[in-house]
């Protein structure tokens, strides 16, 4: 996904890499020096959240929680982490257990690099054994503390924090009075500042396109957040079948059904988790997201699009 202002004159671009993704902040207007200072503050905020929640960084709260798994100890967490866990809990409830931040340990058995080379699928018994360590309801929580009771259990904020970071950046930008502008972090997007009717166009990549940059649709967005979940981002071909890297925590198998779901919501984090839940629900995802009432665009595995977001073909502007 990519975002550009409808007005081809982009006054200010700021790019950096964080959370394993390219990040871009675009301001519609000429960037004053204080705005530059604020923009570097925005980058700082993304890095703060990365340092706090990355499961790859040795001092992050995620790593500390995961390293304590099965040791019978509970880890003290700050208010922000507590609220993120509350949010993850809401997602779990709303998705009937499909959105589960403890499902990360399934990645070990779905090691696509090895599986693709050997052209084999993991053994069912191995999957069942790994599923014992998965389950949000197994996590023990008390106010201000969390405990992972089983060895090998882990949590991963990856499905939430990137979108949350985008919202935090927008909130700071608005509090500091800069904008209108747009922040994109690895495909998760949020507009900020008082948009004066000006809309941004966001390109949705064709999940089946031969070229990475081929776009299936453009949508116009004036405000709020926009996020996409889909297996076109990452998939593996094993024995002639495409396997999504999104795993169903109830079955332990990759999800099937929707190639990509894009959702619009006031907050990027809501758009992101709604899109993720829809993909996790497979074919039933379309009905679920319709009932949610948020504008969306679905692309199924045959490349058919459906949804309530108005689309424009390229050149439609």
């Amino acid at each position: 996904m990519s975002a550009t202002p409808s007005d081809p004159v982009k006054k200010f671009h700021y790019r950096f890499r964080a959370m394993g993704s390219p990040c871009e902040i675009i301001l519609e207007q000429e960037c004053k020096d204080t705005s530059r200072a604020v923009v570097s503050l925005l980058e700082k905020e993304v890095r703060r959240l990365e340092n706090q929640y990355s499961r790859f960084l040795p001092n992050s709260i995620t790593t500390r929680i995961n390293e304590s798994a099965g040791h019978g100890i509970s880890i003290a967490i700050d208010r922000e982490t507590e609220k993120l866990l509350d949010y993850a809990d809401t997602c779990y409830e709303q998705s009937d257990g499909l959105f589960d931040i403890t499902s990360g340990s399934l990645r070990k058995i779905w090691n696509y690099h090895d599986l693709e080379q050997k052209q084999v699928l993991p053994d069912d018994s191995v999957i069942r054994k790994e599923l014992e360590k998965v389950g949000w309801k197994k996590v023990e929580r008390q106010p201000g503390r969390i405990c992972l009771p089983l060895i090998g259990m882990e949590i991963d904020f990856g499905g939430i924090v990137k979108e949350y970071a985008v919202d935090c950046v927008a909130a700071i930008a608005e509090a500091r009075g800069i904008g209108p502008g747009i922040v994109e972090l690895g495909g998760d997007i949020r507009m900020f500042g008082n948009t004066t009717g000006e809309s941004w166009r966001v390109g949705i990549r064709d999940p089946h396109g031969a070229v990475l940059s081929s776009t299936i649709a453009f949508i116009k967005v004036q405000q709020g957040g926009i996020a996409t979940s889909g297996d076109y981002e990452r998939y593996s071909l094993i024995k002639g079948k495409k396997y999504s890297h999104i795993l169903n925590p109830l079955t332990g198998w990759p999800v099937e059904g929707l190639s990509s779901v894009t959702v619009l919501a006031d907050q990027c984090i809501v758009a992101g988790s709604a899109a993720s839940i829809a993909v996790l629900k497979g074919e039933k995802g379309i009905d679920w997201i319709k009932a949610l009432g948020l504008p969306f665009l679905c692309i199924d595995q045959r490349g058919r699009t459906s949804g309530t977001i108005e689309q424009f073909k390229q050149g439609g502007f």
Partner: protein
Amino acid sequence: MALTASALALPGISVPAKADTPPTESSIGYRISSYKEDKLPEKFLLTGSPERYDITIHQFQLVTPVGENYGLTLNSSYESMSGASPWYAIRSFDGEKSIVMSGATIHEQRRDYNLTMRRYHDNGNYAISLGTSKENDYDSWSGGFDMSRNFNDNQATLSGGISMSNDDINPTDAALFNRVMDESKRTASGFFSVSQIINQNSFFQSSLNVTRHNGFLTDPYKLGDRRPESKTQIAWSNAYRRFFTSLDAAMHLDLRLYDDSFGINSVTLDASWYQNYGDNWQITPSIRYYSQSAADFFTPANDFSSPALLNSSDYRLAAYGAVSGGLQLLTRLDNLTLTFVLERYVTDDGYSIYGGYSSPALVNFTRMSLGVSYTF
């Protein structure tokens, strides 16, 4: 929708609503100030040096977050003073009141340290602070507690606090000049304030401060100085702030009314205009008017005949008025902020709105300061 409700509870998403946020960045600052009193006019000087105080002040500040909810502030300052100060006032032979200045040039140093630990929570903050101040003849300890709480969706704030201090005074050359030895003073102070956000661009605050001093309140270095052993002060301060979006400027207006048991009433009026130029410059002209009445026991010429009577010729207890004007220049370079301040203070008994005795020893001064702070 459940997802939205849960998302709105996240701290980063509701950033602007969170009024009390601890510092998220550390900063260190240093400021050097020069405070120079004008010479005493020769016509008032009977004997001694016309040079008055020159003070150089070095101030250092460190502000740093501690954990997620605490902020630590360390302030320290070092002052070095030199010059002479009025010793006593008499009527000279021609009947004019005259000042006798302390003979030799005084050299003094003062060191101050103050540490504040503040805890921030969702709707307010509280803090404890400890401080010490040392001079070669003076030793002070202080401690305080204050808290503030936000109401009405953070539109209103109530604050209050108490503080206490103990000062030990051991004047130099006590035996030589028959000065007191080993005296002490205790101070207790409390304040209460209410502030209200009027709208997006304006804000009002009103606060009441009551202070009680007990012990040795006399100036040991002034001949024939004798003051009451207790003092109660009441001050009522009001502040109004208004930001003008179209001008990119802010107006600060302050009014303070004061009354104490020495018999001094005073009024202070302050007006400042914070004008931003572009993003990196700010120029702030300011003007202040101050006037006070004389203390009940103030005398323009010391009466040495009845030493038991309350009696002081200290110009700070006289009736007078003062006008000062200042200009502050501020510039930012990335994480660095530089400030320069120039202030001129002129005092005269003619500026006073109060009647009563004035003093010939009123002081005019010029203050300059240069500050730098770095955020990281």
